[in-house]
């Protein structure tokens, strides 16, 4: 066995160029598969863990998906608001640990403006334990102060002290009405989170109220967003998670005002499931790449087999059995495979290490670095097994020839 291993090594080393190219193509495709997997995971994590530690999201009576989309992902609209007294009621509920009030519906140049309190900065979490952090300045609590997400800052080129005009009633496009009498001042820049937070501007509820009071005087129209001491929704965390279903039922049956309470993690996961075709497509792509490179390895092995008939004849004349010759070829393809695995893995770790920050900045994706093979072990094992098995193709041919044609080099 030791002899065969050393023979296989030396034989491979002797054919540096072809073997090198095979290893290169195999490790590159492995790198692609692993990267696709990482991107897939990062996408999933970024999506499903946009919000964490929040046990319930509460808004006026509506569907759970709608509530999540509007409050967490800034999609869809609200028909109704909830009274501040209602919010206070639940805020002071004995089993509630904290709440985050939300007043949505305003925008700034395509980004959403969130009216909230300092509790947002204090309690909002994503990806499990991650909280919000300031890059520059501080969270704005005062009147006409605004805190901006990293993408807002980057896209619009905003810095601390920048004057910002908030569009009334519109979050998606540039609004028809500007609250241009009341320019806000940027007092804080948030670090990137890879979530919708990066695309949001945060102001205090009081600031928003002042704004709306005035605009109401101007136009006297109907607005679909919060004013008159009204909120759009609020996030809530319980002292004890076990109470979540009870409290959910209690909120849904609230008599004073029709409310909906949803458990974000459940709904967000359901939403992700509806997007799972993207995930499948990414996986499929990876496996196609792998298939092609494994086939190319077989074709290279088969091609070199012709040049190696003499080698096989010598080993056979020295007493090597057809089985031993076949094993030698399987051993070679296994060595190529493991070499490629190591190289592909190394490449992936290296590239992620180097490109991590750039990808985070540019695409808001958190690629997990380090040697965490975790979820990749299935693909790695699959590649290892398939790669070794590919050696059976030339091995079988050598085996047959050895038994049938003797030592003749045809």
């Amino acid at each position, binding site marked *: 066995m030791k*002899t065969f291993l050393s*023979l296989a090594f*030396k*034989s491979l*080393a*002797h054919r540096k160029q072809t073997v090198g190219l095979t290893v290169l193509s195999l490790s590159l495709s492995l790198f692609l598969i692993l990267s696709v997997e990482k991107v897939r995971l990062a996408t999933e994590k970024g999506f499903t863990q946009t919000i964490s530690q929040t046990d319930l999201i509460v808004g006026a009576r509506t569907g759970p998906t709608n509530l999540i989309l509007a409050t967490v992902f800034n999609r869809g609209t609200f028909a109704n608001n909830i009274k501040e007294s209602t919010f206070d009621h639940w805020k002071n509920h004995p089993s509630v640990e904290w709440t985050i009030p939300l007043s949505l519906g305003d925008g700034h140049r395509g980004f959403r403006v969130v009216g909230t309190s300092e509790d947002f900065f204090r309690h909002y979490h994503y990806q499990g334990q991650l909280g919000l952090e300031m890059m520059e300045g501080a969270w704005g609590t005062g009147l006409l102060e605004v805190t901006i997400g990293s993408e807002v800052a980057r896209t619009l080129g905003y810095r601390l002290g920048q004057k910002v005009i908030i569009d009334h009633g519109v979050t998606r496009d540039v609004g028809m009405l500007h609250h241009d009498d009341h320019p806000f001042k940027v007092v804080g820049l948030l670090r990137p989170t890879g979530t919708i937070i990066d695309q949001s501007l945060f102001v205090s509820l009081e600031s928003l109220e002042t704004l709306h009071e005035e605009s109401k005087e101007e136009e006297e129209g109907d607005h679909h967003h919060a004013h008159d001491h009204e909120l759009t929704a609020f996030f809530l965390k319980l002292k004890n998670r076990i109470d979540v279903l009870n409290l959910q039922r209690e909120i849904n049956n609230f008599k004073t005002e029709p409310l909906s309470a949803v458990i974000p993690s459940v709904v967000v996961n359901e939403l992700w499931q509806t997007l799972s075709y993207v995930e499948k497509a990414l996986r499929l792509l990876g496996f196609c790449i792998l298939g092609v490179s494994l086939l190319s390895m077989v074709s290279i092995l088969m091609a070199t087999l012709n040049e190696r008939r*003499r*080698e096989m*004849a*010598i*080993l*056979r*004349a*020295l*007493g*090597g*059995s*057809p*089985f*031993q010759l076949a094993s030698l070829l399987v051993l070679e393809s296994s060595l190529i495979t493991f070499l490629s695995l190591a190289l592909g893995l190394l490449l992936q770790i290296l590239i992620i290490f180097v490109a991590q920050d750039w990808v985070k900045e540019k695409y808001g994706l958190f690629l997990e670095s380090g040697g965490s093979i975790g979820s990749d072990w299935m693909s790695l094992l699959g590649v290892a097994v398939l790669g070794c098995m590919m050696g059976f193709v030339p091995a079988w041919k050598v085996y047959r020839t050895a*038994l*049938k*044609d*003797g*030592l*003749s080099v045809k």
Partner: protein
Amino acid sequence: MADNTIEIKNLEFTYSGGLSPALSISELKVLPGQKVFIYGPSGSGKTTLLEVLSGVLEPQKGFLKVAGVDLLGLSNSQRDQFRAQNIGYVFQTFNLLPYLTVIENIELPIHLTGKTIKNFQGWQKRLIERLGLVDLIDRSVQNLSVGQQQRVAVARALLGKPAILLADEPTSSLDSENRESFLQLLFELAKEVGTTVIFVSHDRSLEPLFDRCIPFSELNRDLSGVVK
């Protein structure tokens, strides 16, 4: 009288898919230590005979006893083991694995059979000295001349002290002066360990050096067109 090293009776070998036997020998006996020269034109089946004698190919019928072993009674893997134990093989050219050094090539059969090289060290030293390979042992075989390569092949074939050395035109790539001295040296070393030499060639000029000379056409009935 000592037992024959090779004993053949009514032996037939047909390649799979072949219509008629490639080899059909009614009788052949070779005594231990004999130097036998078998000549015949290229493509007449001399190589097939060597492959049958070494157990690479399995004959379909007849009796074949080599080095005291009845080869027709053996399984494929037993014949491979038999070959590793009893046969030294030298080809016409390209005897060596290009990615090994001279010494690695020489020791390869010992390693392949899992024996320890220690038991062969004295003999190995002598072979290397006599074949003039002392200065070459760590060289890559790719840098050797054809003559040097053939001497490495002989060292490898004889290292295991085989009962029989099968040589398939090993001198045809050498020039005539080297041919004779090469053969003399081979005989001398074979004699030291009592190895029988079976040498096939189409070139009869070397005939006088051998104990015994057999035309392949007489040995192989089918191709000579005599009896069936």
